[in-house]
């Protein structure tokens, strides 16, 4: 037998419902904590959603944040956030800072004068500074973007619900969408707890997580549907366990390849998209978890009407032989 790397043994017989209530409780707790975190701590919205300006300052000199703060406070622009950015791909003399300026009061549009003022103040303390990226969003647009983002996630969930409903039974659709909502809320919660920057690209990541998570769930459901026809007598709980065990090696394989690819991006992809790919990487794990422990739990709770296939011959006997 040739060597094969196997993270999952050939035949597993794990009872995924053994910890049914514990995992279910943990999921609910995670969702509640996430909602609370968003409600209490709020999200660290980027300029896309909050309006204002971010300026990326790159320099060959290391100037500390305190110097920046004194220079920028003099301008009286309200809240100015200054963060230092580190990345393994930076050159030794590459010092990067992100300045974030709150939207100026009374303006719906962007305020180019502010940008010029800030850039000049920075050049005064660090003549070597360059501004490779300046992003400015007026409050009018940012409010629309929040709405659009919300709409996108809702529309995607609804679309998936309808598709799964058409392809499977309604219980599957409920389970699937519950798992999706769980994934999205927990991911958003993590962003709230750690106060990572939440902008448009994170919404794209959320949508990708939706796609990935549903992919995972649908594969198991597909196999479950097949097994439902095959094994008429087996209790639903055992049938689900059998299905999950059958597809477990695939779930782990796909999770690993996707996670490998994303890890490469997190490490080498640069700081500009780290939040984006980081969110997706997290989503891959939470997606796999919710497939195993949320989606099926709900289908099991809702129960399935198995009378449909009663007329067809089952294959229970065949398995008993094998």
């Amino acid at each position: 037998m040739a060597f094969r790397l196997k993270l999952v043994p050939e035949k597993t017989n794990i009872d995924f419902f053994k910890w049914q209530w514990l995992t279910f409780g943990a999921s609910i707790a995670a969702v509640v904590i996430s909602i609370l975190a968003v409600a209490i701590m709020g999200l660290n919205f980027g300029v896309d959603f909050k309006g204002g300006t971010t300026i990326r300052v790159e320099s060959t000199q290391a100037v500390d944040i305190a110097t920046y703060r004194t220079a920028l406070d003099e301008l009286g622009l309200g809240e100015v956030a200054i963060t230092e950015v580190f990345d393994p791909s930076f050159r030794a003399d590459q010092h990067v800072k992100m300045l974030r300026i709150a939207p100026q009061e009374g303006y719906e549009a962007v305020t180019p004068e502010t940008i010029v003022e800030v850039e000049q103040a920075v050049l005064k303390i660090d003549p070597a500074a360059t501004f490779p990226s300046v992003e400015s969003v007026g409050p009018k647009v940012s409010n629309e973007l929040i709405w659009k983002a919300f709409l996108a996630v809702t529309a995607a969930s609804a679309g998936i619900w309808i598709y799964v409903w058409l392809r499977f039974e309604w219980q599957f659709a409920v389970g699937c969408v519950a798992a999706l909502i769980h994934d999205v809320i927990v991911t958003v919660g993590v962003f709230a707890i750690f106060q990572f920057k939440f902008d448009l690209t994170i919404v794209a990541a959320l949508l990708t997580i939706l796609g990935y998570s549903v992919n995972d769930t649908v594969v198991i459901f597909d196999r479950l549907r097949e097994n439902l026809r095959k094994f008429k007598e087996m209790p639903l709980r055992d049938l689900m366990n059998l299905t999950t065990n059958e597809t477990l090696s695939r779930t782990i394989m796909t999770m690993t390849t996707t996670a490998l690819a994303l890890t490469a991006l997190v490490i080498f992809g640069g700081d500009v998209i780290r939040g984006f790919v980081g969110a997706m990487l997290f989503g891959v794990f939470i997606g796999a978890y919710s497939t195993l422990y949320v989606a099926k739990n709900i289908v099991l709770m809702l129960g399935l009407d198995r009378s449909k296939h009663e007329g067809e011959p089952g294959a229970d006997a065949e398995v008993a032989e094998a």
Partner: protein
Amino acid sequence: MSDTPLWKTLLIWALCALGLVFALPNAFYDRVERHNDAVAAIEKTRGPEVDGVRPEGTATPEQAADRALWPDWAPSAIVPLGLDLRGGAHLLAEVQVADVYAARIDGMWPDVRDALRDLRDQIGNVRRQPSPEGVLRVAISNPAGLEAAVAKVRSLAAPVTTLTGMGQSDIEVSTDNGEIVVQLSEAERLATDQRTLQQSLEIIRRRVDEVGTREPTIQRVGDDRILIQVPGIGSAAELKSLIGTTAKLTFNPVVRVTSDAGARPGPREALLPAQDDPNTYYIVEKTPVVTGEELTNAQPSFDQNSRPAVEFQFDPTGARKFGDYTANNIGKPFAIVLDDQVISAPVIQSHIPGGRGIITGQFTVEESTELAVLLRAGALPAEMTFLEERTIGPELGADSVRAGQVAAVVGAGLVALYMIASYGLFGTFTVIALAINIALMFAIQSLIGATLTLPGIAGIVLTMGMAVDANVLIYERMREELRAGRSPRVAIHEGYDKALSAITDSNVTGMLTALIMFFVGTGPVRGFAVTTAIGIVTSMFTAVYVTRAIIAIYIGWRRPKTIIV
């Protein structure tokens, strides 16, 4: 294998080959890009058709050298890079369409006044009352004549000239407190908005094209917004000054010329710099004689002495005003003002009837052509405010490309190693299919010109991770079938057959989210949506058909008794 017809196998390999051929230019990105630029530049120099044949363009030596970098017969479409990778500026502008209403209504006052003057015996004196922007209020001294006055003003209305507004008139005339109130009708406002946006788009497009940057995006968004993305431009501020925020073309009487930047203009006068000379300033009357809106045409030409000049033509109203003014002001200069800069200030040589005129000056042929374009394009009909602006420097873009490349290579390597370690020979088949998949993605993006953004690169890497999913599904199925004691051929067949439904389901839902992202997202997010959508299609093809074709070759060649997946 016998269950795949030969034509189908050939088709699969032909598609793969095409994919590789069309992806190839991207491997020589810089060379192909320079070649394409040179070809485009040479194309521009080609003259108009003569006897059904267009003469060849002329190339400078550098252009010829650039063109030779890549053969003309080879495919030369490359993936356009988004602003976040190439650097450039992004602006979202809102056109203040209401400005135009105000200008229209103000422009109506002289006509209304003249019309009412004819009824002076009935209505007495006519006076314009203060009113909000876009509303004209007229008071008359004899209230008894109000009805007649309203009827007279109504007779000035013209029908709206759009399909939806057919049959409606352009103004609404009502009375309020014994005063006549004139406003634009709803239908006319819509028609005006439409025109204003069209005009603004056209003007921005022309001005951006003037500087000749590569693939600018200029498009209308929603009712009154315009999205402008220009790669390669230094900053959003530069872009804004290029398209001009309050650009207006006017012809103003010149009061005097000065070299003093601090000169104080009198009341209703303005001090404007000359465009071509930093030391010359003009003091002009603020009220223009005619505006660019009244210009119907402008083209480069030559004067009697064969010097480059620009010919122009006004519409009837403009022609009348221009004719009257030139008749009364022979020998005086008047200024052609664009974006608050005097482009030229010719001296009126004679009365110019008929609204035709010629601008002479110290022009080169290029300058006169450019001026004609500017005049034709005219001024922005309304002011714009900027709701969003983003600048990405080219170095940051290049850094992102580099980082993306490294990540993609490492990611691909990890996935490949893992697949081979897990499925041995069959894993290798998947890796080959994966490579073809990436080539196909690049080929399709190049051919349809879909922009690659930084999240798009992440999309490619993610697709590599997820593309193997289909093969994992198939191989896991095959393993099961083999364990159940099926022969290799049956196991392979069953593996592909049974996995297909799960593969389809998972890809359809993936496609769904990609589509939603495309319609809701902008810029980089859109790029991500496009890349993943293409990736879903190509990975379905390579994972299901290409790997199967490879396995068919292997089975046909080696005829193994047993296989280990």
